[in-house]
């Protein structure tokens, strides 16, 4: 049987302080996650969404997206799972210049492209995204190791059978 192809995609801007966190988390996960039998995993990074996501995601069976978010209501460093309806709140999964993730996925489907049938979006509450710099803010830096552990556990939990069942619809 063909391996289940999975993409773990980190979104962010590496030079905009906490905005880098999606990318940094994926780099850590690449080091720490053991790829189970029957899976093929690509660890990718991107700094923009829109049409670009269509290019990246086409062909995968499943995708984990890791991004940052500022809700102002959660402690910095808190890992959350985001449903597709909430995409507008994320830093990067929408784009004023072209299309958002849900539209990109639907467009791909409408055009007969093979789009992932499984999507999970995790976001990390961040603090400083309005100043250029290569360092995470202190609270996010402190919370980072725990965030890696929680994301790893969440993803590993899904490897054991949860992946194929959790189909989502983009309509």
């Amino acid at each position, binding site marked *: 049987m063909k391996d289940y192809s999975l993409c773990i995609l980190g979104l962010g*801007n*590496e*030079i*905009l302080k906490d*905005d880098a966190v999606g990318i940094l988390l994926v780099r850590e996960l690449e080091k720490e996650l053991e790829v189970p039998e029957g899976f093929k995993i690509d660890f990718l990074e*991107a*700094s*923009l*969404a*829109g*049409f*670009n996501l*269509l*290019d990246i995601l086409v062909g995968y069976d499943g995708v984990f997206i890791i991004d940052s*978010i*500022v*809700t*102002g*209501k*959660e402690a910095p460093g*808190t*890992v*959350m*799972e*985001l*449903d597709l*309806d*909430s995409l*507008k*709140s*994320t*830093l*990067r999964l*929408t*784009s*004023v*210049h*072209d*299309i*958002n993730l849900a*539209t990109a996925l*639907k*467009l791909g489907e*409408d*055009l*007969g*492209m093979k789009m992932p049938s499984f999507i999970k979006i*995790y976001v990390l509450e961040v603090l400083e*995204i*309005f*100043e*250029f*710099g290569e360092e995470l803010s202190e609270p996010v830096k402190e919370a980072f190791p725990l965030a890696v552990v*929680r994301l790893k*556990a*969440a993803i590993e*939990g*899904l490897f054991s059978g949860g992946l194929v069942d959790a189909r989502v619809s983009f309509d």
Partner: protein
Amino acid sequence: MTHTVKTKDGLKRVSIDPITRLEGHGKIEIFLNEEGNVANAYFQVPELRGFEKFCEDRPVEELPRITPRICGVCPGAHHMASAKAVDGVFGVSPTPAAKKLRELYYVNHMIHSHIAHFYALAAPDFVVGPDAPKAERNILGVVAKVGVEAGTEVIKHRAYAQKVQEIIGGKATHSVAALPGGMSKALSEEDRVKIEEMMLSQIEFAAFSLKLFKDAVLSNENYVELITGDTYAHNTHYMALVDENNRVNFYEGMIRVVDTKGEELYRFKPEEYLEYIGEHVESWSYLKFPYLKKKGWHGLVDGQDSGIYAVGPLARLNVADGMATPKAQEAYEEMFETLGKPVHGRLANHWARLVEMMYAAELGLELIRDPEITSTEIRQKLTNVPSEGFGVVEAPRGILFHHYQTDERGMAKKVNIIVATTHNNAPICLSIKKAAQGVIKNGEVNDGLLNMVEMAFRAYDPCLGCATHSMPGEMPLEVTIKDTQGRVLDSIRRH
């Protein structure tokens, strides 16, 4: 509103009302006079700090790799402007082959950006229709209208343009190829053949897009009225790069400014920009207002005496006397025969983008068929002491300036960047004010306010990320209407 539930894996699942994320807002404030009509309208964006400081004391040759990261939307434009500024710092010109490679890369950057903008943002209004239900006014509605086959062509050609940038630039999004005095990688014959096929296909696709626009727009009087009517028109001056024959050039040339009547006002070298461009500051905005210094700043008013100028696709065509390639020249002539010249109606930017898409495709084919394009002579030696450089290109949204100064070791000491959205700040404010005036009468606010305002600034496709050096997210739009005392009368949000 934030709704939180626990899931079985122990993580919180959150649904967030978009209103809670206030950062990153495009904020519009409309002030009414005593009669309840629009007195002023301000467009505001959040400030991102510290980019110049971030660049300081870094080796200047790193800037072509750092500046594209300001923004994920037009990294190619920053890469090119920055590479040219660094050429200037080291007092060196790229070899002819390197210059051609850069231009080939850059026309593909333009194509990719124009396709995304036209099909995701303009076509929903013009191909699907401005009166269509909001749920259909998106790219899915466009595909439903033009068909799956044409929709597939859109995606394919956008991907082609990305691919060429990747082949030449090393990476499609954050390119690394341009170095002071040239490029890091020559083009192989194998890749040349691939790109030639793609450029041929782009020409056909540009012709298809032009026809689609003309069929949809020119056959409909209401659309023509939208473009040529007064609602979205402003008598501003225009600024763009031109070649020696005053034709559009994305990569290099002289900066030309034409006035509200289309007559040449100035023609100057990029390094002279400080003599011609002033920057006005308003206490209510982080974003500066560039203006023509010799005309002076007379407030947010248009007209021949105003110093306000606009940049972007329409500005480029208004400034130029023509296009350097045949099919684009035809399309250019047709546009101005239909609309007159200069065109002040901002929605004509959408048509101008398609004329430029054709030019970019034709120029790309010319470049890829140039025997020198696969030359391995792609880098000049650096022998001069570094000092100061200016890099100016036409970004998809308008002219882009990079100006660097270094110490004698080549460490960046001063970095100044003026992006298209900043050049267009005053025109955007004018457009929003006019759109608001059309829908607010004697204190009565028409329901169409947000749509009208949205169409007004969408034509510029403002890049808030770049303008404030931030990354662009969704731009939830908040419009606040205030009376003469500054009391909030109404507030409308678009998520």
